[in-house]
């Protein structure tokens, strides 16, 4: 399906990542927004509050992030595409209802414009230290999809991708920006609506009595949804449930329910995967990065190549589910993965796990507040090639 032109601000813009993300959401068909102000994400909410009344969307500023996320997960069952936006402290508060959205399989998008943590940390300065929280933040076992853009243009394009993936897999998609990308202003080209692919909600159209809100088989064949108010009389619960949505409190039902939530994403990782590779054919060292750090790493990689080091680039655009099979395969061919991140070691742990000792993993840490010095990455690349 193509985008509805009413939500598409076609043209060439000079725009920051936060605003581009808001435009991407509107182009993707998002018409319900519930959020709570927090630096450095507030500009997304501001732009939506200004534009929604003119495109037929509902904006509500809730009392906190708990409420925002609860409303966003619910709005999916009203039939709308819904989104919320936050940063670290608010992301922590959203975890409870991100878990609910995962459990009841509500398609929705949660934007986290990451800042330095823990706690209040660095409200106005960048960080990438919520990546593990995105994966593991709510209690229990489940899988989500997380996307990391590295430019305002990608904030537009990939927000649409985030909505499309959330509809495809009926899962919350976490859009993991960072303060640098959110506040960076660059050229953003918004195409015409008929050039934008939008995944529509898959609605059930059959015998009302036979509708089951969940298909708990872990396959890529996801159950269609219905809208509350259409006379299906569905029951939806955060308790462990069967395919009717009825609570069943025993180990067998838990096994079926949890395996489904995990398998539908984990087993289909290759279908969900979005990566960018460069110069990895002859590489002995691969710099694996995501978000703003991928742009800093590029400079280091180019300098290393100029010095004759065989180094390539692997950028994760979809960070979760993690491309395990790809890393495993590459670890058989190269000496070292260099993983710069604005945290004290998060995605590097996943790389190390998948290498299983076949290749070295060297993390280049940064506690947050600013991006890496490319020289710090360069030094590690050179070391990794030895």
């Amino acid at each position, binding site marked *: 399906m193509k985008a509805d032109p*009413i939500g598409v601000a076609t043209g060439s813009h000079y725009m920051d990542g936060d605003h581009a993300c808001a435009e991407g959401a509107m182009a993707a068909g998002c*018409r*319900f927004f*519930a959020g709570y102000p927090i630096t450095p994400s507030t500009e997304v909410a501001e732009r939506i509050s200004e534009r929604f*009344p*003119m*495109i*037929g*969307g*509902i904006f*509500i500023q*809730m*009392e*906190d992030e*708990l*409420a*925002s996320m*609860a*409303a*966003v*997960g*619910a*709005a*999916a*069952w*009203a*039939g*709308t595409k*819904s989104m919320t936006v936050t940063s670290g402290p608010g992301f922590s508060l959203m975890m*409870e*209802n991100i*878990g*609910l959205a995962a459990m009841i399989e509500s398609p929705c998008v949660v934007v986290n414009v990451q800042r330095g943590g823990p706690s209040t940390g660095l409200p106005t300065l960048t960080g990438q230290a919520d990546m593990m929280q995105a994966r593991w933040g709510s209690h229990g076992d489940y899988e989500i999809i997380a996307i990391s853009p590295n430019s305002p243009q990608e904030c537009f394009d990939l927000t649409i991708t985030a909505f499309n993936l959330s509809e495809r897999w009926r899962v919350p998609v976490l859009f993991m920006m960072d303060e640098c990308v959110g506040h960076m202003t660059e050229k953003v080209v918004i195409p015409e609506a008929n050039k934008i692919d939008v995944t529509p909600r898959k*609605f059930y159209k059959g015998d009302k009595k036979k509708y089951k809100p969940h298909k708990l088989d872990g396959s890529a064949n996801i159950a269609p949804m219905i*809208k*509350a*108010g*259409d*006379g*299906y*009389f*569905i*029951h*939806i*619960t*955060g*308790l462990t449930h069967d395919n009717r949505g*009825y*609570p069943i409190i025993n180990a067998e039902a838990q096994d079926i329910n949890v395996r489904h939530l995990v398998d539908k994403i984990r087993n289909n990782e290759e279908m969900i995967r979005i990566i960018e590779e460069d110069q990895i054919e002859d590489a002995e060292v691969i710099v694996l990065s995501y978000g703003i750090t991928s742009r800093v790493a590029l400079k280091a990689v180019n300098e290393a190549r100029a010095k004759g080091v065989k180094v390539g680039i692997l950028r994760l655009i979809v960070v979760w589910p993690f491309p395990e099979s790809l890393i495993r395969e590459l670890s058989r061919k190269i000496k070292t993965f260099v993983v710069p991140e604005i945290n004290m070691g998060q995605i590097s742990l996943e790389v190390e796990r998948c290498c299983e000792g076949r290749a070295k993993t060297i993390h280049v840490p940064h506690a947050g507040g600013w991006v890496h010095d490319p020289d710090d990455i360069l030094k590690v690349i050179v070391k990794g090639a030895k």
Partner: protein
Amino acid sequence: MNNPDVQPLTDTLHIPQPEEELPHPMEEFLRTERLPHIWCSTCGIGTVITAFITGLQKSGLEREKVAVVSGIGCSGRAAGYLRLDSFHSTHGRAIPFATGLALGNPELKLVVISGDGDIIAIGGNHFIHAARRNINLSIICINNFNYAMTGGQAGPTTPIEANASTAPYGCYEFPFNLPHLAESSGAVYVARWTSLHIRRLTNSISEALLKPGFSFIEVISPCPTLYARRNRLGTGLDLMRFYHDNAKIKHGTDTRKLDIEYQDEIIVGKFLDKDKPTFLEKRDDFLKSKLGDKFVPYMGPKA
């Protein structure tokens, strides 16, 4: 024991035969395949469910357009037994979850049925803000003065002196006066009944369902297994007798005067019924006045 003077009971009663079995009048509103329910014998929640179904039938609202949201706790299980669009959300978040549904599909009338701990303690912030915004929600708050699902802990409604598992020497915190909280936060309809006042509660539920905006009904309800037993108040039936003797119907009472003391008089009635634009009515009128033709109303979910 065969006394020829005593007629066997079965001869005096008409026992329906299988072929003439009639459905229960509320059967279509219940997920009968999920019965028996989890509630204790003589718990008041079942009575509230009966009053809700009857009130809903009386309201004449289209059943398809009514959705129920519950939080967590004994009363939080209400949604699971009702054959309506029903949602069992997270602890305290029934109101924001219902807000998402109410704004996402404005054709719906949302009803939140949940407990005092869920709505007023962990969900207290959501309660006051949904009331302030006048979201189109009917809140039925079943108040049993304690957290029953987890074993009878003290909560924000536990009266001073009442014993609870986390107030083993008696509760010493000042409890909330729920109707006053609702009114001062912006609710347009406020009533309180006990689970003894079935007919009046049913009428109130029917009125609240037809009232656009944030309506609030508190239902004082017996918890025989925990609150009553721990405080040696007898069975659920004894508490119903207590409500009979101590509940005073005083419509229109100033909500500031509705505090509940331990085992003391309980003032019940309808305290507030006023008109105010709902969140969506206010929003649409306001934005239309500011944006003119540029304003595009929310069209609801697209099929």
